[in-house]
């Protein structure tokens, strides 16, 4: 039974849950519709009327088969609380149902923010200046997130595992474990792990810090209205990490949605994104290190997309979308084969009069 049917059949149960959670007498829940971007999550827009007060909310439940990297609903709720309290534009967490007894699986309700997250439409709709301004705004928002440090962390985040001493080595070891768990051998990705292992020492700076990182901060995971940021979404991968993991993930080629020359998320210039980050109190951005983490991002997304396909192929969750996602890994494999051989992972600058192709 799909979650849509489950939800429609359980409106009364959700209303009863909200009466208990709020102490209100009159609670009405109206299902508005399913929201996109639900490969890992199922998201529903719901309108709540609680003792006459109307609240536009999102109900979020895990998809039938989650992926190992992502947090459950209770943890995600805790993450949102911390992030929201830190002043990051993120949906305000409202109520958590963590037992699974109300609709068959845990869910939470958060404030519903306005704006669209559709990445393909966004990257094509923005004018150049708007795109740079948005990139700057996103850089600033990320800097706010990265102010949250382990030492000052609230008890709410006690469930987050401590970061490894050598973060890159730990990530690469994890990638190898995940490659081992896939049914087919992946020679290109094995080669990419080796290359990154060899390159890593050059990018391990003395002053590396560990901060609260989103770990899926990219175009498609934030809301935009009138070219302005309205909210950052999808904290289910968040954890302690090197801030460069977020900076690199955002700029990675695989998250530019076809607008490859707009190196900051397909929306704007890399410089604008960095400038926004630095102006909002983020540490000065080391471009070389961002580019190293962009390669880490391509490798991680290649592995994740193969895992998505396996969710379908294993029969745990039949989904055309998940099946097709598996094909995308070839694009990252080809990218890695090119980009990991470029000095500093940078495209070779074009020389004047040498190349007629302006692509």
């Amino acid at each position, binding site marked *: 039974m799909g979650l849509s049917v489950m939800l429609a059949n359980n409106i009364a149960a959700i209303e009863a849950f909200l009466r208990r959670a709020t102490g209100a007498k009159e609670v009405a829940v109206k299902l508005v519709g399913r929201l996109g971007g639900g490969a890992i999550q199922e998201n529903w827009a719901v309108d709540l009327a609680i003792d006459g007060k109307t609240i536009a909310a999102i109900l979020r439940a895990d998809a039938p088969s989650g992926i190992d990297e992502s947090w459950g609903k209770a943890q995600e709720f805790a993450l949102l609380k911390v992030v929201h309290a830190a002043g990051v534009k993120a949906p305000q967490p409202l109520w958590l149902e963590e037992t699974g007894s109300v609709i068959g699986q845990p869910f939470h309700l958060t404030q519903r923010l306005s704006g669209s997250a559709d990445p393909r439409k966004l990257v094509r709709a923005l004018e150049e200046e708007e795109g740079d301004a948005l990139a700057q705004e996103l850089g600033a928002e990320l800097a706010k997130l990265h102010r949250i440090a382990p030492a000052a962390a609230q008890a709410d985040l006690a469930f987050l595992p401590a970061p490894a001493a050598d973060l890159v080595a730990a990530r690469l070891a994890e990638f190898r474990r995940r490659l081992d768990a896939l049914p087919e051998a992946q020679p290109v990705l094995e*080669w990419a792990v*080796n290359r990154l292992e060899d390159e890593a020492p050059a990018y391990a700076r003395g002053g590396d810090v560990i901060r609260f990182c989103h770990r899926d901060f990219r175009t498609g995971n934030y809301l935009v209205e009138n070219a302005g940021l309205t909210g950052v979404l999808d904290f289910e991968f968040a954890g302690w990490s090197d801030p460069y993991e977020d900076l690199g993930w955002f700029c990675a080629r695989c998250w530019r949605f076809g607008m490859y020359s707009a190196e900051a998320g397909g929306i704007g210039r890399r410089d604008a994104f960095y400038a926004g980050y630095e102006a909002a109190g983020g540490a000065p951005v080391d471009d070389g290190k961002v580019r190293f983490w962009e390669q880490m991002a391509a490798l991680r997304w290649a592995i994740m997309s193969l895992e998505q396909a396996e969710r379908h192929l294993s029969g745990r969750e039949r989904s*055309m979308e998940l099946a097709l996602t598996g094909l995308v890994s070839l694009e990252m494999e*080809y990218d890695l084969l090119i980009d990991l051989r470029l000095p500093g992972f940078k495209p070779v600058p074009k020389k004047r009069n040498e190349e007629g192709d302006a692509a």
Partner: protein
Amino acid sequence: MKQRPGADALLEAALTTLQEDLLPTLNGRQKFQAAMIARAISVAKQDLEGAAESRRSELQSFARLYGRDVGDDLAALRRQLAADIRARKFAAGKPEETRLIDHLVETTATELRITNTKYLAQRQRGRGAESAV
């Protein structure tokens, strides 16, 4: 099967009907789903058409890489290669590494030609040093 129309003609007919008759009438989630089905059929069709050739060329590429007769079990060869790479059997900066990269680029490009030929063309046209293909 020997019966006409064969698998390729059936997929072609299904794809055309979907793209020309059905897709224009759909909206929203259904349109998205139909577009995904069209993509799945299109990739399957390409794969079917080029299967024998890409298999042959991957085996030849393996033979060049290992410099010997490699048999014909591609899945086993890929497993062996992945293990050899992890065991660092292709030393950096040595001719064996060049052969390895040539093999990886060639086999990946062949597959990408099936799943997303536009992407491949775009990257080959771009600024990178894509010398191996």
